[in-house]
């Protein structure tokens, strides 16, 4: 009887110890992107990456990818009154501004109806098209572009 009790107590102790140790080990292994800084500690600010200077068409990685914006867009407003992007990318302006015309697909609404101007679904250009900063990726990425765009 006594021996049983002793055994149970020892087993419990071992389990607790192992649990505590692996807990510590796990806490060391699991790191967030913030690094090992405690939640309430002061984190070191990441390096500020600059917007890439104006350039030309950037490579696409898959067929339906919205092309990246190869230029700065600071201060460009897209709201009820104005769409700064369209002052260069509209079909009427593209020729003299040397910008790419907005894609024909952007004139089609969700029912497949062809409209006479950019579809409301496509009005907010920066929902899909984004400029690039000169920043290193936070995690490695093994994505490989399909052959068709390589």
């Amino acid at each position, binding site marked *: 009887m006594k021996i049983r009790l002793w055994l149970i107590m020892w087993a419990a102790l071992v389990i607790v110890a192992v649990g505590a140790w692996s807990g510590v080990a796990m806490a060391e292994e699991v790191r967030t992107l913030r690094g090992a800084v405690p939640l309430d500690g002061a984190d070191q600010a990441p390096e500020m990456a600059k917007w890439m200077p*104006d350039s030309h068409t950037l490579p696409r990685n898959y067929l339906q990818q919205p092309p990246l914006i190869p230029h700065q867009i600071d201060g460009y407003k897209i709201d009820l009154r104005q769409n700064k992007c369209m002052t260069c990318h509209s079909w009427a302006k593209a020729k003299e*501004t040397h910008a790419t015309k907005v894609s024909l697909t952007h004139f089609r609404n969700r029912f497949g109806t062809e409209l006479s101007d950019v579809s409301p679904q496509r009005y907010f250009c920066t929902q899909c098209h984004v400029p690039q900063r000169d920043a290193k990726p936070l995690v490695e990425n093994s994505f490989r572009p399909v052959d068709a765009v390589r």
Partner: protein
Amino acid sequence: MSQDQDRAPRSFRSQWKILGGFFFLGVLFWGGFHWALAATNNETFCISCHEMKDNVYKEYRETVHYYNPSGVRATCPDCHVPKAWQHMIVRKIQASNELWHKFKGTIDTPEKFEGKRLELARNVWSAMKSTDSRECRNCHDFKSMDFTRQGSRAFDFHERGFSKDKTCIDCHKGIAHSLPKGMTAADDTSHF
């Protein structure tokens, strides 16, 4: 004889006094004039009217002329009041019209402001167009611009635009405030 001799210097003296008085008044007037011009030529004065503060000022605070890498700020009078005094006086006299409309409450609600905004903006555009964007050029002179160090689009547009006699405001509308509602194709003067 002696009387004449006596009188001459006295009138001479009083002439000087009068002249001196005028001079003094002139200085006072000129000083006051300058003081008045200076006192009405800063941002604090402009935004002392809520019509200016609640709309245009708020928008301007989010733009490059309020906050930028070089730390040089363009304030309201820099863009809206000419520097050369003969032009400045004209603008100041025009500005008394603003006082009248302040009194009438022409744009004293956001709705009224939006209602008149297109008209006000068009006034500013045509004023800038007629002076070849003089106030912009007080700070930015295209002769001092190093095009090669600008972005490739700026380079391209400036080179082609200036050779076609375009001026800053043709292409840079809405640089400091939101654009008004209801602009038409005729308002877009950027074609070149």
